[in-house]
């Protein structure tokens, strides 16, 4: 039986983790649970810590472009608060049900990454509760700053294995006056060429997405810049994400993303390539699909991880170990000495 821990404050979360470490009880960390089907499959942990009870909005300083919230605040709520002051958190991938802490722990960057950057670049200050129950604050609440070692960057993408993110200060940006999607179909070579034109043209797109049979470009800025580029037509909504039993996220050099797309279209796998960024999300239905996509990504000097899917797709969620695993292990030992946190999320750490 998994015991549910539902702290309402960072202090309670730290206390719960301290107790779990003392008992050597494994702990699954969950925000909204929208990105929990990842890592290696296995039996449930002894305890599950849900962050959704930590839902205070600590400070919104529109004039300073910062928002400080507890980790359990829904990402939709954070975005709504920002928008109420004409601002945005454009780096975050917004899903219904996700929490701010979950988005950060999973390093879930948005499709606007091309222009806005990765979500790890938007975290100014973080408070984590370490595996042994210490509350550690790192970074600083100002929009710029060097404040010692960049623990916020380690926390983003650590999937809860170094500590539970309990509070975050985010850097906000002004909402663009206008934004819209434009699209085109046609042969792949033509779409890749159109993507290249969109990337190098005068207007910096916020997103250039290649998918099976389509290209979608999002433009944002003054009205005059949000006009259909040559050969593209307005779309009424953002393109749908690739859907399948599971989802693989590959990373390759942006210069080689078109080559990966060629193989994916030949194989008939639904995909979405973030041109100019180097990310490609692929819908997969079997372990064989995972292996094929990973093989192509590795051949292009990249990598591929299963970021969502049922157990049978996650026998090997990551592929080859990345460089520096021994450093990751040492970091893990120092932040979660008993190794209780999300033990299957990053097994080699």
């Amino acid at each position, binding site marked *: 039986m998994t015991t549910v821990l539902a702290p309402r404050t960072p202090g309670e979360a730290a206390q719960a983790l301290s107790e779990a470490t003392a008992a050597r009880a494994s702990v699954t960390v969950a925000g909204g649970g929208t990105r929990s089907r990842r890592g290696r499959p296995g039996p449930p942990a002894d305890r599950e810590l849900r962050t959704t009870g930590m839902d205070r909005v600590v400070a919104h300083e529109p004039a*300073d472009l910062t928002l400080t919230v507890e980790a359990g605040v829904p990402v939709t709520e954070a975005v709504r608060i920002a928008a109420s002051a004409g601002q945005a958190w454009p780096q975050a991938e917004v899903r219904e049900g996700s929490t701010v802490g979950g988005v950060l722990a999973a390093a879930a960057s948005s499709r606007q990454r091309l222009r806005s950057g990765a979500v790890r670049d938007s975290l100014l200050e973080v408070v984590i509760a370490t595996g042994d129950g*210490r509350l550690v604050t790192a970074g600083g609440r*100002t929009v710029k700053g060097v404040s010692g*070692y960049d*623990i916020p960057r380690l926390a983003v993408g650590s999937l809860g294995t170094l500590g539970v993110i309990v509070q975050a200060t985010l850097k906000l940006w*002004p909402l663009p006056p206008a934004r819209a999607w434009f699209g085109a179909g046609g042969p792949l070579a033509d779409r890749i060429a159109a993507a290249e034109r969109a990337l190098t043209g005068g207007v910096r797109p916020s997103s250039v997405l290649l998918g099976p049979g389509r290209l979608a470009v999002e433009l944002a800025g003054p009205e005059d810049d949000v006009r259909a580029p040559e050969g593209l037509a307005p779309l009424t909504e953002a393109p749908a994400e690739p859907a399948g039993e599971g989802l693989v996220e590959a*990373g390759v050099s942006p*210069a080689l993303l078109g080559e990966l797309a060629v193989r994916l279209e030949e194989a008939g796998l639904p995909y979405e390539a973030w041109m100019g960024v180097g990310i490609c999300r692929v819908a997969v239905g079997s372990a064989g699909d995972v292996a094929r996509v990973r093989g192509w990504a590795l051949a292009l000097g*990249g990598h591929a991880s299963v970021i969502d899917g049922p157990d049978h797709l996650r026998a090997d969620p990551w592929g080859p170990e990345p460089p520096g695993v021994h450093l990751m292990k040492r970091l893990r030992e120092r932040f979660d000495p008993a190794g209780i946190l999300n033990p299957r999320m990053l097994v080699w750490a």
Partner: protein
Amino acid sequence: MATTQAPAVRDRFAALLDPGRVIDHPLERRLYGRDGSIAQGDCGLVVLPETTAEVVACMRLAHDLGIPVVPRGSGTGLCGGAVPLDGALVLSVARMSRILEVDPSVPCARVEPGVLNLDLSTAVRHLGLHYAPDPSSQQACSIGGNVATNAGGPHCLASGVTAQHILGMEIVLADGEVLRLGGTAPDPPGYDLRGFVVGGEGTLGVVTEITVRLSRNPPHVTTMLLDFPTVAAAGAAVGGIIGAGVIPAAMEMMDQKMVVAVEAFVRADLPVEAAALLLVEVDGTAAEVASHTAVVERVGAETGAGRVRVARDEAERALFWKARKSAFGAVARIAPNYYLHDCVVPRTRLVEILARIYEIGAELDLVIMNVFHAGDGNLHPLIAFDRRDPEQVERVHAAGTLIIEACVAVGGVLSGEHGIGLEKRDFMPLTFSATDLEAQACAREAFDPEGRMNPAKVLPIGSRCGEIVLDAGSLPEGTWL
């Protein structure tokens, strides 16, 4: 201090490189005992490797001999991060200065750490590209040093500091192990070690190769100078522009004392009677530049700007920037030395903190001038002084402490872009608890368990991870701690 290093040790390093690239002369070592700060350290041998293999060989030997190592780029850092203590080995990467590859299809460049910041942008200009972080020292500072300090610059307001422009790196750890972290393929699985190394101030290893993101040059740029009758009015304009939803490419403020000094130096026809000057640059498409320029002009009018001087051409734009970037050179006409501070406050507290800085200057009878990144609240109070006057030096240190305390008191942080190094090390407890500092010590120790990489920097004396206490290092006389 002036003693020659043990010949046996010198000869062992000389066998790895060649005798000309191992420096043992006391005078030269004294030079390597300093950086852009006012601290004088105690430098042991200096080695000048030219390849990663040579760095590895030096690091292994230093490991075997148990010698602390201080990596050094161009030595322009302002926080004492490259100042060696207790006769540490200085490993200079200045001779690793090749641009190895430029790939416009990413776009990115792979460079050795000794490549100078401006040299990289110059080398890719014909491709319509540039390297975005542009510290004021960009003609002299190295990319490796920029990585160590997570350097900034005026254009980081919109485009972000160094960490956002580093795709990957090769690093040699304290024991000589070589790792390649990150790369052009984004988000490799596991912790973001690449991101963590940026800003590591040479305490995590020696970065021997860097893959940097290059940025496309904006199609249009407009640069404006606005003069204001009061500092408060200039501060209101900064807030008004951001509040109107415009994040300019750069937004720099200069106060009257600084404008007067710069004008005497550069002769750019600056309004020396103004209390404060704003240099605002907007870039992007024609539509973006037009709408942002209109906002700057409107807010300027609303907040009492005397006039908005728009650079008519590239030459005038270059002159505006020359005025901004020569500020520190201009101070040489006022006093023989200056102490350049670096701290950040929430932008809304800028005016209040400037008033406090003027008060501190008056209380301690010091000339304090300001030229800084107003858009992100990153202050650079500059204290002019004469280091030959020990009593004055004491007041300079006292003013520095008061400024830092004042910034932290209004919710600021210790440094915006210069780093912690020696200078801010003992101020870290102002913003972090013992638990926070212990966590930082643990993260550092994961990379360098023996604490031999640039010891005594960043974390205060006595910071520890569990039972391991970081080597304190003895502070030379004349440091301001």
